[in-house]
């Protein structure tokens, strides 16, 4: 029940990102996903976590729940961008995409044959929830025009991968996860700097106008 509730929260947060136009909302929802997913090992293990897992949890929660939102909010304020404007496909289209993506994820996860060692362990909703979250992130990157939104989309995608990793891998490969987190951290950092430069250089941060760079 706890695990399912967590997944519902994560999926709903993804839907809110799809349907909202406020970048502040994106940041909050991505942070919510991050924090909820940070506690995922608890729901899976139903016991006190080992030290390594606890460390991973702590790092993930602090990074996704505090550091990234702070970075994003700062970038948002400095660049004074508050809203996404006219994304490709519109917001209704995004929600319809969300519904279809969820159905597709369910269908795919039905076809998916899990390794027998995981059969009883992995909650059934894990695979569709993870797929859905990854698809949400990809969709946000594809359709939103502000570089900041795209960076958040990247973060959402990572959240989906995190569900996969935690729920499917029998033993959590701490190093892998930590490496991934580091990746995201660097990516967010670089994107933050890049969008900031973009903003200063061009007076806007619309990624679809980057072709101005071609000279």
């Amino acid at each position, binding site marked *: *029940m706890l695990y*399912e*509730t967590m997944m*519902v929260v994560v*999926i*709903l947060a993804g*839907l809110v990102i799809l*349907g909202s136009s406020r970048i502040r909302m994106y940041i909050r929802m991505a942070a919510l996903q991050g924090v909820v997913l940070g506690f995922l090992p608890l729901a899976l293990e139903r016991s006190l976590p080992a030290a390594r897992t606890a460390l991973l949890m702590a790092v993930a929660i602090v990074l996704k729940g505090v550091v990234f939102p702070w970075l994003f909010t700062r970038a948002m304020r400095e660049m004074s961008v508050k809203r996404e404007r006219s994304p490709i496909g519109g*917001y*209704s289209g995004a*929600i*319809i995409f*969300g*519904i279809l993506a*969820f*159905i597709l994820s*369910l269908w795919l996860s039905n076809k998916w044959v899990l390794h027998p060692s995981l059969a009883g362990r992995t909650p*059934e*909703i894990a695979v*569709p929830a993870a797929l859905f979250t990854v698809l949400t992130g990809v969709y946000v990157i594809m359709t939103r025009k502000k570089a900041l939104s795209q960076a958040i989309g990247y973060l959402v995608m990572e959240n989906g991968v995190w569900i996969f990793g935690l729920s499917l891998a029998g033993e959590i490969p701490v190093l892998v996860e930590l490496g991934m987190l580091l990746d995201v951290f660097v990516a967010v950092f670089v994107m933050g700097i890049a969008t900031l430069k973009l903003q200063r250089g061009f007076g806007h941060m619309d990624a679809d106008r980057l072709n101005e760079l071609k000279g």
Partner: protein
Amino acid sequence: MKLELAGTIDVLIAFLLAPLLPGIINRVKAVCGGRRGQPLLQCYHDVIKLLKKGAVYSRTTSHVLRAGAVIAPAAMVAALLLLPVPGRRAVMSFTGDVVLWAYLLGVARFFTMAAALDTGSSFEGMGASREAFFSALCEPVLLLVLLLMGMHSSGGPVAALVAVALIIVLLSENSRIPFDDPNTHLELTMIHEVMVLDHGGPDFGFITYAAALKLWMYGMLFSAAAVLPVFRPEGWLPQTGVFLASMVVFAVIVGMVESLMARLRLTRVPQAILAGGALCVLAIAFALR
């Protein structure tokens, strides 16, 4: 098909108490806004006053306008026979009765829209057009909610999702605030209210009463969605008590939503309804596991 004649008492309760719900909602809104507000029984006064009046019809109108005012309450009363108080049986029950219930509301809506177009007023045409749009999008969400409620799933995330989706649908269908503003009779923002601009006298009394019955029925649905996953009341008095208490809670929730939220822009309304649909899909996925 099963008949339950004891259910007629619940129908009578609905007849008597339905106009109270708008009163409670308005009182909640007034309290939140720091006002005293209209009397709790305002809706009763309105209906009675209207029933005592004569009538004025536009020369453009035909029998359709007059029929609309009669069919709407008739459809609501027929629909009322199909809805049970949580823990009891409705007057009539059979597999798929909720589908008929939803479509009876559709009949009332169809004739209200036709009556609006009958006046030839562009304002009412606009209202009918928007009503048609939003209710067409609401229909699948409502049916999915009813389907999910019929699956008798346990509590937990599914019940919560269903309840939220139901609230979205009922706010939209009853022209409550994030979707429509029941108080702005003469603004372009409104949807439902503008359709009845040219109704007057007993006709308008019928329409007002029918709207109250509709809100009451959605309250019954809410009560079933909120109460049944938690427990199943036994015995007539506890059932009635739980039911009426949940109706008051329902009115307070609607009032709070109206006080706390601003009306959505019209382009945002379909998105909100679609989000309700997404919640239903999610709930179905969880309910089937």
